[in-house]
């Protein structure tokens, strides 16, 4: 199964420019159904309301950071299977491992390319498809 182009994606980053870049890249890839939040505290209630198929989040944000958001998502019965892609400047091995243990589905370090974003999204949904 490949990703559904109509799926609803939430983009979480404290920098509006980065949200705009990701949103534009997603649009280039055919994903037009996106929403934005500037940190975990804003994102979590939006996610809880339902309707989102995919979460792309930064790590280091004021308020609730991306890792805490990820842990909250995994702890929520309705959200625990939501695919989460982390796009962050945090590049220490122990942090990548920490994110993996918290249940992230993909990890991209900034600065990144359009090709990397496409590759990771495709990979995430391929794996979800093959897992049934």
């Amino acid at each position, binding site marked *: 199964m490949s990703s559904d182009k109509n799926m609803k994606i939430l983009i979480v980053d404290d920098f509006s420019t980065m949200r705009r870049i990701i949103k534009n890249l997603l649009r280039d890839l055919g994903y037009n159904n996106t929403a934005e939040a500037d940190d975990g505290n804003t994102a979590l209630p939006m996610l809880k309301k339902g309707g989102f198929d995919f979460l792309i989040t930064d790590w280091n944000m004021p308020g609730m950071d991306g890792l805490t958001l990820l842990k909250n998502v995994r702890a929520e019965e309705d959200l625990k299977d939501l695919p989460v892609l982390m796009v962050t400047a945090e590049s*220490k091995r122990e942090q*990548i491992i920490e994110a993996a243990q918290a249940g992230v589905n993909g*990890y991209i370090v900034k600065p990144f*390319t359009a090709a990397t974003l496409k590759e990771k999204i495709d990979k995430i949904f391929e794996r979800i498809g093959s897992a049934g």
Partner: protein
Amino acid sequence: MSTEASDLDRYAEKARELLNHAEAGDHEAVGEVLDELTRLRETELFREVGKLTRELHEALKSFRTDNRLSELAANDIPDAQDRLNHVIELTENAAHKTLTALEESLESLSGLGSEGQELAAEWKRFRQRELSATEFRDLSRRMDAFFQRLEAEGATVQSKLTDALMAQDYQDLTGQIIRRVMKLVKEVEDGLVSLISISAPERATERRKTADKRVADPSELEGPQVPGHESDTAVQGQDEVDDLLSSLGF
């Protein structure tokens, strides 16, 4: 405290003696007690001067040996300069990348509109059957070329605009670096404040404790790596992230 307390006791004792002698009308004894009181006052003064001298000495000593401040001056400030230079580099590169993309896009698009207008006018003449066979062959050749150009330039402009879009990621990265330097500035400020309050040592230690705690926290996020200041455990790019994750079964 104990010297001050015993000083006060002695003052009280002398004051009582003074009162007794005065009430008894013993002028000589009153004079003696007053002399003793003056001597007592002088010793106290000397002790105060000694204490001040010691404090001044300590302050000067700690001014020279305050490790954190000298560390800040020797390492962190130059480090901050490198970080800020990196910010300048990132913003400069982004501006150039954007300008290049825009200039090349403009070049790609130049003449496209006017050529289109000309061809549309010719096409209208053709629809109205005003073109000769030779003119139509010419128009058809020009239209072929125009479509080819449109196809090529369209792709070029799209890729240039994506370049310009991607170049905007500097804002996020530089913002994070600048925030870190601001944190350092705050730390220097705290250091200077504690230097000023050195005559009140309890306050200074309190500040030092919080400063140490901040440096020692290993789970603290590092943000973007700065060239020449990479963390030992940081990965070098996306390939290493992928390798690490696949080693974890991803």
